[in-house]
């Protein structure tokens, strides 16, 4: 303490001295140019070291600053190498600055607000510049990552405004738990939670509403860089939640020098141009007979009826979406302190009527060098979001629009007295009119979120730094669903209101001490630290039914005796100690060893702490004397090996079963669905990675290849089991799954002149996954959220199914002529119904009606894992113009086309237009001779037009679309920066640019549905998720954007 005071005093004295010196200053001026092409560099910060004085270069690269001889000027500019020049006697100081693509000394942000030389990292990391994400013009920055990062798989959950996205790095390591990476902003883990509908009184599955994932609150305008740590090596620094990798976001800080005000804004229009197609020939009815009161379209051909009118109810329903975004930031500062205040207003009107998202984002960041040894970074972020998101899925707008009679105008949805115009004579079974659905029901949520963060770095001596970060992420969301009494979901309860308010509080404190020591050719550093992580989620839900006033959305408008409440408080605490040791020999060999021990509140006391180590080695062989002279060809080369272990805890409160209140007469409690497990152990993971980084021809070509192999055992799953357990789900602990993959990043600059530059960035990802065994040795683990249409669901399937289904005909391997098993032993399988087959693999046909027989057993019928994915980005710049294009390529992977199955079975699909043609199902009759040498081939002819049950006999197996490929234009952008010559004619603007861009401009695919890149559940779905399940949801619409940015 005394020492501290002395130091503070010394600082004050020195400040005083420096003020004295101002008198002896003289003006120094100069011009700053880009070393590559000698063009002037505007906006370069020029600061007198150790003072608050500074300026920025003007549009012509000129600056003028007062400094004394002996003082040092610091020149810095993003993307360029920082320069420090000592002032001599000159009054003129010209400088050219090198662009900072010399990645040899690149620094990446890795942990807890700290940074590390990239060359010292012995595992795969990839960095994406904030500007790149901003330029992709997405509301949700996560959408901008697809195609840019090897090993990263992003799935949008819907194309509505305010929709969410799911990111998985290197596949999913846990079949039943969260697999999303950890999101860290300036060293502080922030919530990426998505509201789980289980907290509602009605306890729903996460499929009919898409709630935004909270990481989408991060404003793309504030992102300086995103570092993606793909493997569990990150867990050593960030703990168990980084077992799935981590997305480390560094926000923009104020730049020193003259204050700057920047604006950027854009307007977009969106449209949907790909729909599932419906037939417009056969009307409602059954067996070829028209019946307006039948839900399916197996009625008479009504296209020949005179005056028959056809309405494009699907196309007409969607509207043009519009989006506008305005960001204003003010920044400035000195060497001692900087500030940056940024505000963004975003308004996004979706392509579905009433769908919208409005967001206000305010962020204030300050940095201060309090004493030469003490530095602080603080930030404060407020985000307010208001989303209105129409229902999707089985009772959603899309299924409603598809199923609405094409010979009626859906937009005429109300009768003269204001009630719902029904297409049936009666209320039973009619699907909601899509307009009625969106205009008369309501589903929205409103979030207020505050994130605060304080980081203190203290360096008492040259070799020791102490750092601590304290952060709080506090948000509250109000969810409101109103179901009109005349809507389908509202008919039985006579309308309802289903509300919830969620208050979440995430507190995180971490501390670390780092010591550095060099001896001889060795450089070493040792870090020890600890963290406290405390999370609390409190949800109050209320539900009421029997609406009085049909159009008034309030819980007070429900019958009081039907109102029910539910309170849910979930708390999790996690304590950790960690250590990391780095050793560098002559910049040639790098060794890193880490260890971490966690104590989690969610596990039984006897098993609640677990230790996980990692070790990695890097070998930069281009540092070898023999290769040193060849750097003009092989500029940089590194081999790296890493091994890491990780543990994972459980969901809170699950070790013992809980009792839930019952709304039945007399109230009371009964056991919930979930069994407990008092002996729960943490999940375990082991990962091995080998990789290389190569840079050729002075960094003109770069290549980064990584291969990894990850095993996750002791999986904690809520597994459906026989009710003989006493529960619907048992809490199991066991099994093993394996993910391995190859990731390649490649960049090349094929062409580079003074005016013209062409850069290619490509990445390639190939993932394999394997179920070694499932917990409890069951045949299948399925994700109940994904069982949303028919009998197909996202499952992890044990290998060797034949051992689980001994009574079935022999189960062949993939491609054999017996049961076409697909996805066996895969975590990404689709389990569903197929057909009964004989030993030869022929489909069995019912001899009494000629229809195929269904196999009502969940067998592997598909695998959603793609063969590979690729991102290909081309950027061209010519003088002030830049053009960049990002292609997203995928090969293989199966999709369950639930929309088509729905349309097929209800006679809406264009594939069932040939119903008047007699059809003989290819197969053999199940007549007792099906397994003999001479089975009876089916010859029973069916004319589907008069046998509507024909189409119902096609099972899920027929709606798995296999090996779906796509090439899609994710982003295309053309920008023009105003030339310095133009800007120099005025004094107001210092920089300016305009651009036009497009997202999802085209899609080439062999998928027969609208778009294969969808997920039918929300990001709240755990495990592998619902990627590849296409039902009742909308893919990302096509977007055109124009915008401008300027600063003054």
């Amino acid at each position: 303490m005394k020492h501290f005071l002395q130091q503070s005093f010394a600082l004050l004295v020195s400040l005083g001295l420096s003020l004295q010196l101002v008198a002896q200053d003289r003006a120094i001026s100069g011009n700053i140019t880009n070393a590559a092409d000698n063009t002037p560099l505007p906006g370069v910060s020029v600061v007198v070291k150790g003072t608050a004085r500074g300026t920025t270069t003007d549009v012509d690269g000129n600056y003028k600053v007062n400094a004394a001889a002996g003082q040092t000027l610091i020149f810095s500019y993003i993307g360029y190498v920082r320069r420090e020049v000592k002032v001599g006697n000159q009054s003129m100081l010209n400088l050219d600055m090198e662009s900072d693509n010399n990645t040899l000394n690149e620094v990446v942000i890795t942990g807890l607000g700290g940074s590390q030389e990239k060359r010292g990292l012995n595992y795969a990391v990839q960095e994406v510049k904030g500007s790149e994400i901003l330029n992709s013009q997405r509301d949700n920055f996560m959408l901008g990552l697809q195609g840019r990062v090897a090993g990263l798989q992003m799935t949008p959950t819907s194309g509505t405004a305010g929709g969410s996205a799911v990111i998985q790095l290197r596949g999913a390591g846990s079949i039943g738990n969260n697999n999303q990476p950890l999101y860290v902003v300036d060293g502080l883990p922030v919530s990426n939670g998505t509201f789980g509908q289980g907290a509602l009184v009605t306890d729903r599955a996460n499929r009919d509403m898409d709630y935004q994932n909270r990481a989408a609150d991060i404003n793309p305008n504030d992102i300086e860089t995103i570092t993606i740590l793909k493997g569990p090596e990150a867990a050593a620094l960030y703990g168990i939640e980084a077992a799935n990798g981590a997305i480390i976001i560094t926000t923009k800080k104020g730049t020193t020098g003259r204050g700057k005000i920047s604006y950027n804004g854009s307007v977009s229009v969106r449209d949907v141009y790909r729909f599932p197609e419906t037939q417009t020939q056969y009307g409602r009815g059954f067996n070829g007979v028209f019946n307006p009161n039948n839900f399916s379209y197996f009625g008479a051909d009504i296209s020949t009826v005179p005056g028959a009118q056809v309405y494009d109810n699907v196309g007409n329903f969607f509207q043009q979406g519009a989006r506008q975004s305005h960001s204003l930031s003010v920044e400035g500062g000195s060497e001692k302190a900087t500030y940056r205040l940024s505000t963004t207003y975003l308004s996004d009107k979706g392509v579905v009527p009433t769908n919208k998202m409005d967001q206000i984002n305010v962020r204030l960041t300050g940095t201060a060098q309090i004493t030469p040894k003490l530095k602080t970074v603080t930030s404060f972020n407020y985000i307010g979001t208001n989303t209105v998101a129409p229902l999707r899925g089985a009772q959603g707008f899309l299924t409603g629009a598809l199923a609405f009679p094409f010979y009626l105008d859906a937009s005429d949805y109300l009768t003269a007295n204001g009630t719902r115009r029904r297409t049936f004579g009666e209320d039973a079974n009619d699907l909601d009119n899509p307009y009625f659905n969106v205009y008369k029901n309501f589903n929205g949520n409103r979030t207020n979120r505050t994130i605060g963060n304080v980081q203190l770095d203290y360096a008492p001596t040259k070799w020791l730094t102490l750092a601590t970060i304290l952060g709080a992420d506090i948000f509250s969301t109000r969810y409101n669903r109103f179901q009109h009494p005349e809507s389908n979901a509202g008919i039985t309860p006579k309308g309802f209101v289903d509300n919830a308010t969620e208050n979440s509080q995430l507190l995180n404190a971490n501390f670390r001490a780092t010591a550095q020591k060099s001896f001889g050719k060795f450089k070493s550093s040792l870090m020890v630290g600890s963290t406290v992580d405390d999370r609390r989620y409190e949800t109050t839900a209320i539900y009421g039914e029997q609406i009085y006033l049909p159009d008034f959305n309030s819980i007070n408008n429900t019958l009081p005796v039907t109102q029910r409440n539910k309170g849910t408080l979930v708390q999790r605490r996690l304590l950790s100690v960690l250590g990391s040791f780095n050793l560098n020999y002559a910049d040639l060999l790098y060794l890193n060893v880490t260890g971490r021990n966690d104590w989690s509140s969610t596990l039984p006391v006897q098993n609640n702490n677990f230790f996980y180590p990692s070790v990695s080695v890097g070998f930069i062989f281009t540092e070898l004397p023999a290769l040193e002279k060849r750097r003009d060809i092989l500029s940089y080369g590194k081999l790296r090996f890493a091994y890491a272990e990780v543990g994972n805890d459980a969901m809170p409160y699950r070790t013992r079963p809980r009792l839930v209140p019952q709304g039945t007469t007399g109230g009371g409690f009964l056991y919930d669905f979930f069994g407990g497990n008092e002996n729960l152990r943490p999940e375990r993971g082991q990962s091995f990675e080998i990789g290389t980084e190569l840079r050729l021809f002075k960094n003109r070509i770069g290549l980064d290849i990584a291969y990894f192999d990850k095993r996750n055992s002791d999986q904690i799953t809520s597994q459906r089991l026989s009710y003989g357990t006493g529960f619907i789900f048992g809490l199991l602990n066991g099994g093993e799954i394996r993910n391995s993959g190859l990731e390649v990043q490649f960049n090349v600059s094929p062409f580079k002149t003074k005016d013209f530059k062409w850069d290619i960035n490509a990445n390639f990802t190939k993932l394999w996954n394997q179920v070694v065994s499932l917990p409890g040795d069951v045949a299948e683990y399925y994700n109940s959220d994904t069982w949303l249409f028919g009998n197909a669901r996202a499952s992890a399937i044990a290998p060797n199914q034949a051992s689980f289904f001994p009574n079935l005909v022999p189960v062949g391997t993939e491609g054999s002529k017996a049961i076409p098993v697909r996805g066996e032993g895969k975590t990404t399988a689709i389990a569903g119904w197929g057909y009964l087959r004989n030993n030869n693999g022929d489909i069995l046909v019912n001899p009494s009606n000629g229809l195929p027989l269904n196999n009502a057993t969940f067998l592997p019928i598909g695998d959603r894992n793609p063969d590979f994915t690729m991102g290909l980005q081309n950027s061209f710049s010519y003088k002030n113009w830049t053009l960049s294009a990002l292609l997203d390529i995928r090969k293989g992977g199966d999709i369950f086309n639930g929309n088509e199955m729905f349309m097929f079975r209800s006679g809406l699909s264009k594939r069932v237009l040939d119903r008047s043609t007699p059809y003989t199902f290819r197969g053999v009759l199940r007549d007792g001779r099906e397994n003999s040498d001479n089975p009876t081939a089916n010859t029973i002819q069916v004319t589907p037009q008069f046998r509507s049950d024909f189409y119902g006999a096609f099972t899920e197996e027929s709606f798995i679309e296999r090996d779906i490929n796509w090439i899609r234009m994710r982003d295309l952008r053309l920008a023009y920066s105003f030339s310095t010559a133009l800007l120099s004619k005025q004094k107001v603007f210092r920089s300016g640019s305009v651009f036009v861009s497009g997202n999802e401009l085209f899609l080439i695919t062999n998928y027969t549905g609208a778009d294969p890149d969808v997920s039918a559940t929300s990001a709240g779905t755990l495990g592998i998720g619902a990627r590849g399940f296409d039902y009742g949801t909308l893919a990302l619409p096509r977007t055109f954007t124009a915008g401008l940015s300027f600063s003054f």
Partner: protein
Amino acid sequence: MKKISIITTLTLFILGTTSCEKYLDVNFDPSFPQVSQGFAILPPMLAQMSRAEVFDGRFAGQYCQYWQSSGLGNVWDRHGYVAGSDAGGEMWRSHYYSIGKNVDLIIEDATAKQQWDYMGVAKAIRAWGWQTTTDANGEMILKQAWEPNRYIFDFDSQEDVYKEVVRLGNESLQDLARTDGAVSVTSLGRGDLVYRGDRSKWIKFVNAVLARNAHHLTNKKGLYNPDAVIKFVDQSFASNADNFNIPHAGLSTADGNFWGPLRNNMANFRQGDYLVKTMDGTIFTGSRDPRLAAMLTASTDGTFRGVFTTQGDANNVANNVRRVPSLWGVQQPVATAPTVGKFIFQDRVDHPLITFWELQFIKAEAAFIKGDRAMAFAAYLNAINAHLDWTLTFVTDAALRTQFTTERTAYLRSSAVAANAAALTLSDIMMQKYISMFGHGNMETWVDMRRYNYSTDVYRNFLVPTSLNIFPDNNGKLAYRMRPRFNSEYVWNRASLATFGGLDADFHTSPVWFVKP
């Protein structure tokens, strides 16, 4: 600032050493209890009992032709089942899960508190669960049920389950007989919505379950003991006041009667043609049953019609005067128009699980088999009158009540009711039992029909689905069991099912143990 670092370090250090365990001790759910007490668990268990029966009773009602689907070719009407569906597996769910281990929770709590009455009630409910579930499903998981850390379960024979009902029933009777410890009417009455803490009625209930247990064995020549059955009946319900009625508050979809209009579960069910014909004078020529108008509803044209099994209602169109009305007594689906419903198809009515008249019919049948016609006839009349009395309670209109009473007198003298002990036939007993069990007793009627193999000697004029209309997988046979719950056993315990043919396509037609001689 160094101070802050020091404080942080120290705090963490202290946390890590002294209060770490306390800090982490937050794994008890603050929102939902993880332990409870008997009085808080009993009410929803009772509610689950009726839910279980009525869920599956819908389909048993179709097999027994109490009601049919309004649509053509419904699989249950055809004595089939829905593949890959949990329909017909609700008793399974209820016995193992929703009532399931909650019974153990009560027993645990009652043991600690010496609440022998709660313990007896908990065992009585579980005994009832074994009995009703095995009657529908046959083989069950018995010995390994609820065993911790077990994921695959062996099935046991129905015979074993029947023995378990006796064993558990006897234990329950012993517990219910105790008056020591904390046994009290007030204490049990707190959770007992059915008998309000009256242990003597619970003793009768257990005897009623044991009566069913003993009586279902009529086809087992060596095992069936009519005297034992009669003894159990005599120790059970003495009047309608003893009926095991599950109350329904009927305020919302959560606490409304499953069959009431509020829950809208019966929109596609229509009164069966066979049931109508047992009451409208078709089968018992010229004898109009007073219960016809009280339990069922006429079409708009005034004629009582029912849906013939598998055929659906061809007139099921708005405003058709011949349309078969819904069980709620109205012509149209009622979802958007408020209606009170009818008979036991109302939101707030009690749902009887076991009744005095059922037991009297059991006694009549047992005495008839024994050869004691006089006892059989007396019980038979008791049963008919008890059901008529009960049905009259649903008739509130004064004029209709008068009409009911008038018709009742005529009816008791008609061909529908045996004139005297000598004239009494087995069919007389079973036909009257069939009428009186409509709605609440579908599961038990299905037991009866299976015991007599759907015989038209017993069930006069009963027409089963014929070759064209029967479910294709049946190979021409009628339904003799419901499959164990699909998402419990067919998905997660297949290998065990395979050991007794549970995976066969026609498994639902394979007779359960009690049916076989």
